[in-house]
C-alpha cells in the first residue's frame, strides 16, 4: 500500500469517526429545535390571547400586573408594620398631654393689715413654673378616665406660706414644689341612655370663663367664680339634648365630701363637711359657643376652726347655701367679641358657738365672741364679668385683649381661688380689675400673656370663713403685674 493509500485510509477512518461523532447528535438537536419552535409558537399564541383579552379589557397589562405584584408586596410589608403599631396603640391605654407655664410677677401692696398696723410692701420679680400632665383613657366606648398631675414651683428655695383660707393649698408649692393629683375621675356613660356617672377627684379647676384668658376651652364643670379647687365626689348627669333640643344640655346632681373625720374611732367629734348640689347647663338657645349655667349647692356641717391643739370646738360650724348663674358667649355676632357674666348669692347659717382659742374667747363661722356675732345669719353676693376681643390682625396671629372685673361683698365666702394668683383675685372682698393682652405664638401650642390686676379690698379677712368681719374694713389694695408664657404639647 502506498503512503497515499495509507493516508487516504486514515482520513476515511477519521472522517468516518468524525461523521459518527457529529452525526449521533443531529437527531436530538432537531428535536430540541422543534420543541423551542413549538414553545415559541405557544407563547406567541398566549401573547396573542393576552393581547386579545387586553383589547377586550379582560386582563391587566403586563406592566400593570407587575406593579400590582409590587403593590401587593408593599401592602404585605406595611401590614406587618401596622400590626406592630396597632398593638402598641392598643397597649398604650393612657394618652398624655402636657402644659408648661412660666410666670413672672410683680406685686405692689398698700395698707396690708399686719398685727394691727397697715403696711406697704412690694414683691419684685417673683418667678414660678407650672407643669401639668393630663391623662386620658377611653377604657371602653362608655368608660373614660381623665386625670391631671400638677406641679407648681416658685423658683429657688422659697417657702410658700399657705393662708388658712387657701382652699387650694394642695395645688400651691411646698418648698421644693409639689407634684400631686389635681383630678382623677371616671365618666361612665350608661349605654343606651343619656345618663352618666362621674366619680373620683372631680374636674373642678378651670371652669368657665377659664378659656377666655387661656386661649382654650372650659376645663371643668363649675364656673370659676363658684368653685375652683380640688373636690372628691360623685355626680350623676342627665343629657337633655335628645329630649329638649337644648344643645349640650345637661342636668346634674352631685355629692361631695369636703372633709372627713377618719379619727372617729379615737372619739374625735367632728361632723363631715358634705356638699349637695344641683346644676343645669346648656348652650344659650340659638347662640353657638355659649354657656347658660345655673346651679345651687348646700354645704352641711362646715368644719370648725381646729388649728389650735387642746381647744374645745363644736362638732360643726353650721351650713350654707349658694345660688349661682353664669352666662357666656364666646363670639358675639361673629365680631370676635366675647362676654361672660356670673352672679352668686350666698346664705350662711353659722352655729352660735365656736372654737375656744383663749379662755372665754370663741372663734366661729363668720363670727366670734369678741364681736358678739356668733350664730348671726349672713347673706352675701359676688359678681364676675369680662370681655375679650380677638383683634383682626392675622399678621400678628390674631392677638386678644381682655378686661375682667369681679366683686365680693362683705360676707362672701369664696370657694373659688384662682391657682395663678398668689393673692386670689376671685377671693377679694371688694373690687378687682384685670386688663390683659394675649399674643398667640403658635395657634394651638404657645402663647404669651401680659397683664395687670388691681385688687381694691373693702374688707380683709385673713382667716377665710372664721372670725367676725364686722370690723374688717380695710384700705388694702394690691397691684399685680405679670408676664407669662404658656406652652401645650
Amino acid at each position, binding site marked *: 500500500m502506498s503512503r497515499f493509500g495509507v493516508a487516504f485510509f486514515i482520513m476515511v477512518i477519521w472522517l468516518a469517526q468524525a461523521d459518527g461523532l457529529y452525526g449521533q447528535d443531529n437527531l436530538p438537536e432537531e428535536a430540541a429545535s422543534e420543541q423551542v419552535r413549538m414553545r415559541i409558537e405557544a407563547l406567541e399564541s398566549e401573547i396573542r390571547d393576552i393581547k386579545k383579552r387586553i383589547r377586550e379589557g379582560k386582563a391587566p397589562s403586563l406592566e400593570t400586573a407587575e406593579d400590582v405584584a409590587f403593590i401587593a408586596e408593599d401592602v404585605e410589608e406595611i401590614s406587618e408594620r401596622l400590626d406592630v403599631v396597632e398593638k402598641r396603640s392598643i397597649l398604650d391605654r393612657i394618652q398624655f398631654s402636657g402644659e408648661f407655664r412660666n410666670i413672672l410677677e410683680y406685686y405692689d401692696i398698700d395698707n396690708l393689715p399686719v398685727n394691727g398696723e397697715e403696711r406697704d410692701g412690694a414683691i419684685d420679680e417673683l418667678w414660678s413654673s407650672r407643669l401639668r400632665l393630663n391623662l386620658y383613657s377611653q377604657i371602653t366606648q362608655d368608660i*373614660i378616665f*381623665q386625670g391631671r398631675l400638677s406641679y407648681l414651683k416658685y423658683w429657688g428655695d422659697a417657702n410658700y406660706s399657705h393662708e388658712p383660707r387657701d382652699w387650694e393649698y394642695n395645688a400651691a408649692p411646698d418648698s421644693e414644689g409639689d407634684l400631686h393629683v389635681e383630678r382623677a*375621675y371616671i*365618666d361612665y*356613660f350608661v349605654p343606651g341612655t343619656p345618663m*352618666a*356617672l*362621674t366619680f373620683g377627684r*372631680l*374636674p373642678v379647676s*378651670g*371652669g368657665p370663663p377659664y*378659656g377666655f384668658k387661656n386661649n*382654650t*376651652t*372650659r*376645663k*371643668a*364643670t363649675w364656673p370659676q367664680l363658684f368653685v375652683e379647687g380640688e373636690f372628691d365626689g360623685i*355626680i*350623676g*348627669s342627665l*343629657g337633655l339634648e335628645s329630649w329638649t333640643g337644648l344643645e*349640650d344640655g*345637661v342636668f*346634674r346632681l*352631685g355629692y361631695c365630701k369636703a372633709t372627713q373625720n377618719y379619727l372617729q374611732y379615737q372619739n374625735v367629734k367632728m361632723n363631715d363637711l358634705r356638699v349637695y348640689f344641683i346644676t343645669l347647663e346648656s348652650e*344659650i*338657645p*340659638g*347662640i*353657638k359657643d*355659649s354657656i347658660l349655667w345655673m346651679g345651687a349647692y348646700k354645704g352641711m356641717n362646715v368644719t370648725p376652726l381646729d388649728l389650735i391643739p387642746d381647744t374645745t370646738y363644736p362638732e360643726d360650724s353650721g351650713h350654707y347655701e349658694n345660688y349661682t*348663674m353664669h*352666662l357666656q*358667649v364666646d363670639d*358675639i*355676632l*361673629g365680631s370676635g367679641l366675647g*362676654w361672660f*357674666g356670673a*352672679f352668686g*348669692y350666698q346664705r350662711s347659717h353659722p352655729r352660735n358657738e365656736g372654737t375656744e382659742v383663749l379662755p372665754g374667747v370663741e372663734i366661729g363661722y363668720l363670727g366670734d365672741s369678741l364681736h358678739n356675732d356668733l350664730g348671726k345669719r349672713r347673706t352675701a*353676693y359676688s*359678681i364676675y364679668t369680662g370681655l375679650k376681643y380677638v383683634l383682626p390682625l392675622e399678621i400678628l396671629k390674631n392677638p386678644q385683649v381682655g378686661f375682667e372685673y369681679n366683686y365680693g361683698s362683705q360676707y362672701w365666702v369664696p370657694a373659688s381661688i384662682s391657682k395663678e394668683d398668689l393673692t386670689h383675685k376671685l377671693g377679694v372682698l371688694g373690687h378687682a380689675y384685670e386688663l390683659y393682652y394675649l399674643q398667640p405664638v403658635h395657634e*394651638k401650642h404657645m402663647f404669651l400673656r401680659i397683664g395687670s390686676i388691681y385688687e381694691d379690698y373693702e374688707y380683709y379677712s385673713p382667716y377665710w370663713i372664721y372670725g367676725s368681719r364686722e370690723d374688717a374694713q380695710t384700705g388694702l389694695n394690691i397691684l399685680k403685674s405679670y408676664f407669662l408664657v404658656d406652652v401645650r404639647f
Partner: protein
Amino acid sequence: MKKSLFLIVFLIALGIFIFQPMSYSGRDGETLFLNKCGNCHSESGEAPIFGPVKYASSQWERFFKRKKHNRKKDISGEVTDEELAIIKEYLIDHAADSDRPIAAGLR
C-alpha cells in the same frame, strides 16, 4: 343693689338672645357638615357615619389636600369650594387632637 345687678345681667342676656340669631348664616361649619356630609353619611345613607374626631387635624389637612373624597365619590356638584373650605375648617377645629371642653359627664 341686688335688683340692679339682676337687671343688668338680664338685659345683657336678653340682648344676646335677640341679636345673636341674626348672625346665623351658611357659614356655620357644623350645620354645613351635618346638612351636606350627612346626606350620605347617615344611618340611612350610602356611606358610614363619621365625625370630626375620625382624624387628627394633620390627617384632615392631608385628606383635603389629596382630595381623597374624590377617590370614592366626586362631590364637586354637591358641595361648592367655599362650602368645602368651611367644612374643612370645622373638621380641623374639632379634630381628634383639638382642644376640647372638659366637664363631668361630657363626652
